[in-house]
Structures are given as structure tokens and as C-alpha cells.
């Protein structure tokens, strides 16, 4: 007997998206109205989620799982999506090329992520991932004025399709050896004693496919180009929500479907983690484009998150707690940073050059302060929130005795501090040549809110810790 209330938020969002799509065909000038309706859809979905967040259960032959982990993170996802949508709407306000489809694509992308968060079998993993990816490919390529946007859309699509291919190939190998796609069955049926190489290949392909999606080095090649080519609010979306959902999905896959095989995925993830941290630190040093720089910085942060996943192999509770805390702090900080990047507007249009921030602290002291706080947080300087993310990650690494990872993490965080400091130096120490325009109110508020959260985090750090602890409770009771 299926209890469909557990999947009601997803059903609601899918229906809403389709109804809006049809409505858009018949009603003229719907763009302005739809923007508000979409926000309402998200808020209602959050309400439903809060209402059912205490329930748990599995649906559709255990392909879909609803537990506190998925419920809590869906709430985080939807709240972040609302703020991102506010940024998007402000950005596309005067753009006639962008129609009402934009919002509907965002709903579908978020829906895909919600399914990823609830995935309990490889089929739902693939379905969620593809729904999300297909919507995002379109969103990236949507800016028809710019050839960069089209190029990055194509690049994202080709590499995304490749990675989906990897993932699917891995899934089919696992299905071939075990005869099941449901995580728990796979875990039971994969026998480490008489394991053929095929299962090992399957695991490797699955991990690599997901590594593409979270842009862990060396599968990161698309990230800087796509981040640069997409319009800035889409970049903000790309660098936060898909990573959040893919990381949680990865956690579920490795812990629920292949717990006995940690000796395989552990080593892969460890290499990915080291490569990402080092690449994120060094490749960003020479960047002059703020979006490319943030792209490399996000690769570095994925490296730290992977430390937590590696640590979770032997220290499940500490490791997963660290991953969730780091991820949520990263999402908040990134959204704030992109809100500031969206304010980088010269009289003749948007700019992405870091030098154009020169003297920002004199022309716009509040926005410069906000950006400085967020950058110091990304660099992990206490007492800002980013420090606590790193603290929990390193704590789990030390507990799991991953000393080499922790030391590489420490060293690369010193290197990466340099490029964050460089942006702050440009904003605060240099004097301005061109004044940037006054920021839009929406960007201003989103940025300031993020900075406020980041600064005041040290006063109540246990709030997030307890929230994460509650989310993980269900995960360890199964």
C-alpha cells in the first residue's frame, strides 16, 4: 500500500509546472504574473514538506524514499531556490527574449533535484538526474544574444550526456551482477567474497558519472566555461543546487548500496578530493574573470566536501554531519557571492572582470563589506561560517585518521586564501577608475542576508548542527 502523501510535494510541483505551461500558451503577458505564482508554488511546497517532515516511508517498490534527510534538505533546496529565483527575476526583468518558460524550467530542474534527494534506487537516481540536467542545459543556453552562452550550453550538454552515459553504464553493470536496482537489495546481493570485476567496474562508472555532475577534478573541465558562458543568475543556480542534491545522492549511493565496497569508492573519492582541492587552489590564482574564479573555487570546495564523504566510510555520523554542514554553508555563501557579482554593472552593461571591482569599498561600502565577509568565509577564516564548515570537515578527517587528506586540505586552503584576499585587496586597497552602478534592491538584500547569516553563525552554531543531526537521525536508524 503506497502512501502518496509522502511524494505530494513532487506531485504538486509537477502539476503546477504543467498547468503553468499550458496557462502560458493562452494568457498574454503572463511573464510578470508567473514570476509571483512560481514563488508561491515553492512556498506551498515548503509548507507541505514541513507538514510531512516527520513521516517516513518508501514508495514505488522502494524506488522513492522519504525520510528526515530528504525532507530537511528539500526544504533547504527550496528556500535557496526562492532566493535564486529572486535574483533571476531581477536580472531578466527587462529582457524580452526570456519568456515565461524560464520559471517553468527552474521548477522542473528543482523537481529533478528533489527526486535525486529522495532516490532510493538507481532508476530514480537516473530519472532525477536527467530531469534536472535537461532543464539546466536549456537554462544555460537560454541567453540567445551571446555566442558564449550557446557554446557553454552545448558543452554542458555534450559532457553532461557523456557523464549520464557513464552513470547508466555503471548502473547496468551493477544491475547485471545483482539483478536489482534498489539500494538495499544491491547492498545485500553484492557479495564482496566472490566479487567479479564487473561489479567493481560498475561502482567506478557510477562514481565517475556523479563526479562529472559535482564537477570534481579531474572531471571538472566543463565547469569554468559553463559558469562563464551562462548568465550570472544561472551560474549561481548551477554552482549551488545541483551540487547539493548530487552530493546527498552520492552519500546515499555509497552508504546504502555499496557499504561493503568502501575499499573501492574510498580510494576513488580520495583521489578526486585531493585533485579537486589542489586544482581549485592553484587554477584560480590566475583568473581575471570573477565567474571563472568562483568556478574554480567551487571545485576546491567540492574537494573539501569529498573529504567528509571519505571520512564517512569509517566515521559515518561525523563524516555525514560534516558534509551536510559544509554543503549548507557553502550554498548560503555562494548565493550571497553571486548576488554581489550580479551587482557588478557598469554604465555600458554587466562586467565580470575582477579589476572593475577596484575601489568598490569607496563607491558602495555596504556591498563591498558584504562581499568581503563572504569571501573571508569562503577562505575559511574564523569566526565566519566558512570556518565552521572546514572545522567539521577536518574534525571528521582527523577522527577517520585521514591525516594526509587533512594536511593537503590545510595547505590548499592557505593557497586559496590568496585569491580571495586578492579580490578583497582590489575592492579595499585600490582606488576606483569607473564607478559601478547602484545595486538593485533585490541583489542588495539577498547579499546582505547571506552575509548576516555568515557573520552571526558563530553565535548560534548549534542551530545548524542540531538541524543536520535531526536530518541524519533517520539515516542511521534504517
Amino acid at each position, binding site marked *: 500500500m503506497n502512501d502518496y502523501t509522502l511524494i505530494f510535494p513532487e506531485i504538486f510541483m509537477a502539476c503546477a509546472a504543467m498547468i503553468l505551461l499550458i496557462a502560458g500558451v493562452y494568457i498574454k503577458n503572463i511573464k510578470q504574473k508567473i514570476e509571483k505564482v512560481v514563488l508561491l508554488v515553492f512556498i506551498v511546497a515548503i509548507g507541505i514538506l514541513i507538514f510531512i517532515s516527520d513521516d517516513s516511508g518508501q514508495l514505488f517498490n522502494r524506488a522513492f524514499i522519504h525520510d528526515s534527510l530528504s525532507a530537511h534538505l528539500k526544504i533547504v533546496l527550496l528556500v535557496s531556490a526562492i532566493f535564486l529565483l529572486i535574483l533571476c527575476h531581477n536580472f531578466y526583468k527587462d529582457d524580452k527574449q526570456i519568456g515565461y518558460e524560464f520559471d517553468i524550467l527552474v521548477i522542473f530542474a528543482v523537481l529533478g533535484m528533489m527526486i535525486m534527494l529522495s532516490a532510493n534506487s538507481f532508476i530514480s537516481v537516473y530519472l532525477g538526474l536527467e530531469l534536472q540536467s535537461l532543464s539546466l542545459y536549456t537554462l544555460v543556453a537560454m541567453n540567445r544574444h551571446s555566442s558564449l552562452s550557446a557554446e557553454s550550453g552545448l558543452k554542458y550538454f555534450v559532457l553532461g550526456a557523456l557523464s549520464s552515459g557513464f552513470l547508466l553504464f555503471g548502473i547496468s553493470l551493477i544491475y547485471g551482477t545483482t539483478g536489482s536496482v534498489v539500494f538495499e537489495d544491491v547492498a545485500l546481493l553484492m557479495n564482496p567474497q566472490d566479487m567479479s570485476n564487473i561489479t567493481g567496474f560498475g561502482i567506478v562508472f557510477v562514481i565517475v558519472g556523479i563526479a562529472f555532475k559535482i564537477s570534481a577534478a579531474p572531471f571538472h573541465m566543463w565547469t569554468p566555461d559553463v559558469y562563464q558562458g551562462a548568465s550570472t543568475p544561472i551560474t549561481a543556480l548551477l554552482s549551488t543546487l545541483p551540487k547539493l542534491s548530487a552530493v546527498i545522492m552520492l552519500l546515499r549511493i555509497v552508504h546504502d548500496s555499496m557499504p561493503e565496497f568502501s575499499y573501492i569508492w574510498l580510494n576513488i573519492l580520495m583521489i578526486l578530493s585531493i585533485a579537486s582541492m589542489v586544482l581549485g587552489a592553484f587554477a584560480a590564482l590566475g583568473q581575471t574573470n570573477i565567474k571563472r574564479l568562483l568556478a574554480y573555487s567551487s571545485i576546491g570546495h567540492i574537494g573539501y566536501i569529498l573529504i567528509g564523504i571519505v571520512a564517512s566510510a569509517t566515521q559515518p555520523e561525523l563524516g555525514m554531519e560534516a558534509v551536510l554542514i559544509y554543503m549548507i554553508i557553502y550554498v548560503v555563501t555562494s548565493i550571497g557571492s553571486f548576488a554581489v557579482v550580479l551587482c557588478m554593472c557598469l554604465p555600458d552593461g554587466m562586467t565580470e572582470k575582477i579589476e572593475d571591482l577596484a575601489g568598490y*569599498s*569607496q563607491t558602495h*561600502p555596504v556591498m563591498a563589506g558584504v562581499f568581503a565577509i563572504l569571501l*573571508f568565509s569562503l577562505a575559511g*577564516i*574564523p*569566526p565566519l561560517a566558512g*570556518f565552521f564548515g572546514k*572545522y567539521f570537515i*577536518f*574534525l571528521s578527517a*582527523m*577522527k577517520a585518521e585521514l591525516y594526509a587528506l*587533512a*594536511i593537503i586540505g*590545510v*595547505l590548499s*586552503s*592557505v593557497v586559496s*586564501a*590568496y585569491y580571495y*584576499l*586578492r579580490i*578583497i*585587496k582590489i575592492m*579595499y*586597497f585600490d582606488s576606483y577608475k569607473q564607478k559601478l552602478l547602484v545595486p538593485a534592491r533585490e541583489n542588495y538584500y539577498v547579499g546582505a542576508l547571506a552575509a548576516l547569516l555568515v557573520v552571526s553563525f*558563530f553565535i548560534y*552554531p*548549534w542551530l545548524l*548542527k542540531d538541524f543536520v543531526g535531526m536530518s541524519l537521525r533517520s539515516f542511521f536508524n534504517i
Partner: protein
Amino acid sequence: MSLHEWPILPILTFLPLLGVLFLLLVPFDDTDEQAKTNFKTTTLWITVVVFALSIIMYLHFDQTNAEYQYIYDAQWLSSGIRFRMGVDGISVLFILLTTGLMPLCILASWSSVTKRIKEYMILFLILESLMIGVFSTLDLLWFYLFFEGGLIPMYLIIGIWGGERRVYASIKFFLYTLLGSLFMLLAILVIYLETGTTNIITLQEYDFAEDMQKYLWLAFFASFAVKMPMWPVHTWLPDAHVEAPTAGSVILAGVLLKMGGYGFLRFSLPMFPIASEYFSLFVIILSVIAVIYASAVAYVQDDIKKLIAYSSVAHMGFVTIGIFSLTHEGIQGALFLMFSHGLVSAALFLCVGVIYDRLHTRDINAFGGLANNMPRYAFVLMIFTMANVGLPGTSGFVGEFLALLGLFSYNAVLAFISAIGIILSAGYALRLYRCVAFGTPVNDRVKAMSDINTRESLIFSPLLILIILFGFFPYFVLSLTELSTETILLGFDESLLEKFGNFDVYKWLAK
């Protein structure tokens, strides 16, 4: 209700932050002179109130009690990591130094800082909060928070209001310190995982295994040695000092450098006694090199600030000598020297600030004959220079003497070598004084410089009085830290302590 039941330490720590909040909310126009003055006056008042509070805290502090006092404990990250505060004699000493120097810094920036006053005052208040926090917290993670958090305001202060090479200096300062501290963070995590708490009081009684002590000691050493700074990781200091604005240099030399020494005394010695003993010779040799090398380098500097910066490195060498001689005299001497150096180096940087404001150069050869047209300035500069050399009768003497006394019982040959450093220090200090105050003025602009005004006298007189006062009556300071020093040495083997006899001279000084 007695003061001990009040949360006086959190109030002391976060009062400047409240001031920051207030200043943030007040709109500010950079062209309005009245607004600028108001900002400066408000900040000055905040720092004065904080200073007054810390004095009250000092007066109610029970010097006959070796325990931590004014304990405050509140829920925080987890059951093992809580928001704990409390002070012993050593902390009180440094809190007084911090809160006392802050009003002087604000006064010193009164006319020399003209741009972006609002940010300047806000950053200094944030820095004050963090510095008081470092000295009053009783939780290892909070210590790290305060310790590292200080990088942000200091980076901005050097970078925004600094000299020509400010960008290089600020980034070097930041990255150097960050690298050292992150190893301390890893060590803190190991300690937390091992003991399940970051409560400093508990940890000071915890017996770490010998191997572990050594690793942890080295990790803490990486952080404190950079902060001190010890040779050979001192190279950020001359750059940072030269480029920082006057008040920034004062805080850097007066308080931030002391965090390294404070860290050794608060963590390395009590928590890892075996490792401290094991590595003591290593540290002392590094320190002796620092004393000789830095004094020699200071002698050839033409930039006055750089000269004082190198002299700071040398003095910090004496501090580590005193601490790692692991004797009562040595540690007391190190503490006294840190306090005295906080006053003296701050005073010297303020002296440089005075002539820099007038002539906008720090080249030692650009001055001369200031004793003629600036007699009062020449007088205070002389007292401070002599205190820097360690002339008996000034506070500089007592600390260096006690530190050397400690080293003498540790190793007489090393004590002899480092005593040469004192002679060298007389060399560079006298050269500085001769070039600046004596001789003939190099040009008319030097001759036309006006003597120190009332505001500047107001800055110098308390420092002058204290330096002389503590030179004659060192027991004000020594008695404050007496019991804490004894507690630190309790952790060491008794056999080690018996090796060194008690010096009668020390007893006489401390009476």
C-alpha cells in the same frame, strides 16, 4: 552582588563589538569634519570605558588565588566545546596591556588618519574585541576563533591605511600567520578527539602520551613561532611593521606579538610538559640566533620602523629564552619583558609616528638635531630608547635580566652569547638616537618641525610614567603573575626544578 558574579569578561570582550554595531548604524559622510570628530570621540570613549572596566576587573582580581577567576560558562557548539571565559594573572596582565594601549592608538590616529575614518574606527574596535577574547577565553576552539579572527581587521588596517608596499606586506602577513595557525587547528581537533573537550582547565591537567605531546607541541609551535615571531619565520614582521599605519604598528608590536608568548605559556608548557622540556634546547638556540641576528640586522637599517621591528624580533627572542629556560625566574622575566616591550615598542612606534606625521619619511638620515627644535620630543625618545636597550631603572631591564638569569641556570654558555645581544641592542638604539636627535638638521624642514603638542604629550606621559615606575617597582607586575607561573611549573618533573637553584636576586625583585 560582587563583581565575581557578573559576566564581566564577556562584557569586556563584546563591549567594543557593541560599539561597532552602533558605529555601523550611524550614517557617515567623508567630507563632514564634524562627523569625523564625532566618530573619533565616540571610539575614544568606548575604548576608555573598556579600559576602566578592565581596571575594575584588575582591582577585584584576587592575586593570592592561583585558580582561574571570573569564570563564565555557557552552552555553545557541543557539550565538550562551550563558551568559557576566565582569567588568571597572566591573562589579566595582557588584558590590561590591550585595553590600555587602545585609547592611545585612537589618540595617535587623531590627525594622521584622514580617509575612511568610519572603517578605521570599526576595524580597531573589532580588533580590540578579538584581542581581549584571546586573553580571556578558557576554551581552545574559542581561542582559535579569536586568534585567527584578528587577521581580518589587521589585514585591512595594513592594506587600506598602510604605506607604499602595503599590499605585499598585508598579504604576506595574512598568509604566513594563516599557514602557521591551521596546523594548530589540526592539533586542536586531535586534542578534542582524544579528550572529548576543549576546556583549557581540564586539558592542563590531562596527561597526553609522550609521542602525542611532541606532535601536538610542534603543531602549536608552528602557529606561535610565526606569531612571536621567531627566527627564521620572522620575515613578515618587518614588512608588516613598516607598511602599517602608526596605530597598527603599535597594536601589532604591543599586543599581537604577545599572543605567541601567551600561547606558549597557556598551552605548550602546561599541556605538553614533556615535549616542552624535550624541545627546550631547540627553541632556546633559535632564540639566541634571533637575538644576535636581529640585533645585528637592526643596526644597519635606515628605515626607523624597520629598525624597531628587528629590535622587536630580538626582544621576542629573549621572551622565548625566558619561557623555555623552564625556570620560575625565566618565565616571570619573559612575562615582564612582554609587558614592558608592549609599552616600550608601542611608545617607540608612536615616536616614529610623531616625526612621520610632520616630515612624511622614516629614513633615519632624513632627520638630525631634533634635540634643538623638539627638546621635549628628544627627551621622551631618549627614555624610550634607553628602555628598549634595557637600561637599569627602566622596565626593559628587569625582564631581560630575569630571562637571562633563567637561561644562565639552563646553560651558561648560551646565556653568555645572548648577553652579547644586549650590547648589540645598545649599538642600534644609540645609533638611532644619535642620528635623529643629535647632530645638525639635514635641512630647513627638519629645523622647522614643531615640538610635540598636548595631544601627543597626553599619549606619551602614561607610557613614560609606567616604564619608569615598573623599572623601579617590578613587583606590581611580578606579583600578579607569580602564582600562575608557579602553576605552570607544577606540571614539570620535580627533578627538573631542583636542578636549578632559587636565586635570591629574584626574591628581592619580586618583594
